[in-house]
């Protein structure tokens, strides 16, 4: 009695494991794209992926991580395509032979978010470096992603541009949370802190509390996204053909138009700029 049940249970489980494993192998028409939380949380993928799938029949499975983690998934061969926003890291990724070739896809911009009370007195400042200096001087609460994401790298670059050695002067006011954009915004909302966010995630974010945009429009807040196929020479498991089709579609006039059409509350979130190709 017991044995028969055990055998049934084992058979059911093995069938399940085999079928889910087999479907992962057999479905050539699906690819894994390692991307960032900003592209997912902003709703961009929900808008453009159905269009691509309808045209190509290729299902796109998005694993949304920080840029550092997404590049690592590519390096390990766990993704077919990497779609992120930290140009220096992306170029290194291609140089080291992990990616085939990098293409610019689109940009959006970062915004400095802060509490309505504006303890650092920077609201409306046109100069992001001055704003960062003021936050540090006032020791105003600041939430950092601290997760090696594209946004985290951008934030570190802005401290540098402001002439602030953040590693040396950081104190309790500087809160490194090591989590995604949404979690950072939730934290900033809960403690009335400043936080650097990409505009898309900010616009889609619902738990704003007292937060609003403090600084925007400085050209140093420009945020470029790039896409690259993981090198099949390095990882033979990479689905090069459908992966490349996705890359080609993103930078095609059709893909670019789909990106440009995505809006929240009438605001365009991402600005396609694939014409300027880079290696």
């Amino acid at each position, binding site marked *: 009695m*017991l044995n028969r049940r055990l055998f049934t249970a084992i058979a059911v489980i093995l069938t399940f494991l085999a079928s889910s494993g087999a*479907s992962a*192998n057999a479905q050539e028409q699906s690819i894994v794209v390692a991307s960032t939380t900003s592209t997912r949380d902003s709703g961009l993928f929900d808008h453009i992926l159905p269009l691509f799938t309808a045209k190509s029949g290729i299902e796109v499975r998005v*694993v949304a991580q920080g840029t550092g983690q997404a590049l690592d998934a590519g390096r390990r061969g766990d993704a077919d395509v990497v779609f992120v926003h930290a140009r220096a890291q992306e170029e290194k990724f291609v140089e080291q032979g992990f990616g085939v070739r990098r293409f610019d896809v689109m940009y959006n911009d970062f915004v400095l978010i802060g509490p309505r009370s504006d303890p650092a007195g920077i609201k409306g400042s046109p100069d992001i470096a001055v704003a960062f200096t003021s936050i540090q001087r006032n020791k105003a609460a600041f939430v950092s992603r601290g997760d090696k994401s594209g946004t985290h790298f951008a934030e570190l670059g802005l401290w540098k541009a402001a002439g602030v050695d953040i590693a040396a002067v950081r104190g309790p006011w500087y809160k490194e949370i090591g989590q995604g954009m*949404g979690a950072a915004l939730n934290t900033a909302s809960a403690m009335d802190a400043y936080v650097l966010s990409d505009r898309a995630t900010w616009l889609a974010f619902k738990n704003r509390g007292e937060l609003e945009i403090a600084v925007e429009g400085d050209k140093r807040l420009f945020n470029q996204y790039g896409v690259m196929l993981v090198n099949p020479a390095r990882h033979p498991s990479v689905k090069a053909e459908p992966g490349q089709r996705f890359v080609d579609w993103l930078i095609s006039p059709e893909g670019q138009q789909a990106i440009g059409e995505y809006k929240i509350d009438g605001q365009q979130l991402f600005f396609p700029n694939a014409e300027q190709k880079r290696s």
Partner: protein
Amino acid sequence: MSEGLDAWQLIASGDATLISIVRLSLTVTLAAVAVAAVVGLPLGALLALTRFPGRSTLVVLVNGFMGLPPVVVGLTVYLLLSRSGPLGEFGLLFTPAAMVIAQALLVVPIIAALTRQTIEDLWREYRDELTAMGVGPTGRVATLLWDSRFSLITALLAGFGRAAGEVGAVMIVGGNIEGFTRTMTTTIALETSKGDLPLAMGLGAILIGLILAINAAAWGLRLWSEQRVA
């Protein structure tokens, strides 16, 4: 998931996305508990009935592993199943199978440890009888497991609870891919990160409701079969 709806409206309207997420959660969790039962029940029984050098260490290990951090198990399974890892050729990372493996690893120690305790207690009662009847080791394990089946349901439910509420491991090895590896818990984490706290909370309530419903069903089954036995 549809914009501007709260969780209750999603249930009421039978939202297809929500239903597929619930179905995946239950499939993964139940499969993990089943795998873990196949390994954990005999392992627990063996630990209860056999004496060998290092047994105490093993008992302490199994008990201690009931508290394995899901995120560490997730990371370990991630590295094993990664294309660059030893089991990479199977291509299981970012699939439901990877989630079942990770959760089964979390549940085995719970089932094994609780089974060991249950069987050890029952063995004290049965020892003389079974020895007198000359029942061999395999027969003993089978008899004891069968006769303590009602208590062992609690062990399975404890394992189920662990797996159903777990987010750290499935997030890492499943990748939270929409329509493929997105479960109740990873959806709740995602909606929280989007700042949609009411929807996240509503989904949390649904998850708790499901866990309670399954426990109620198990309790009902136990009452029903106890009556039949009596």
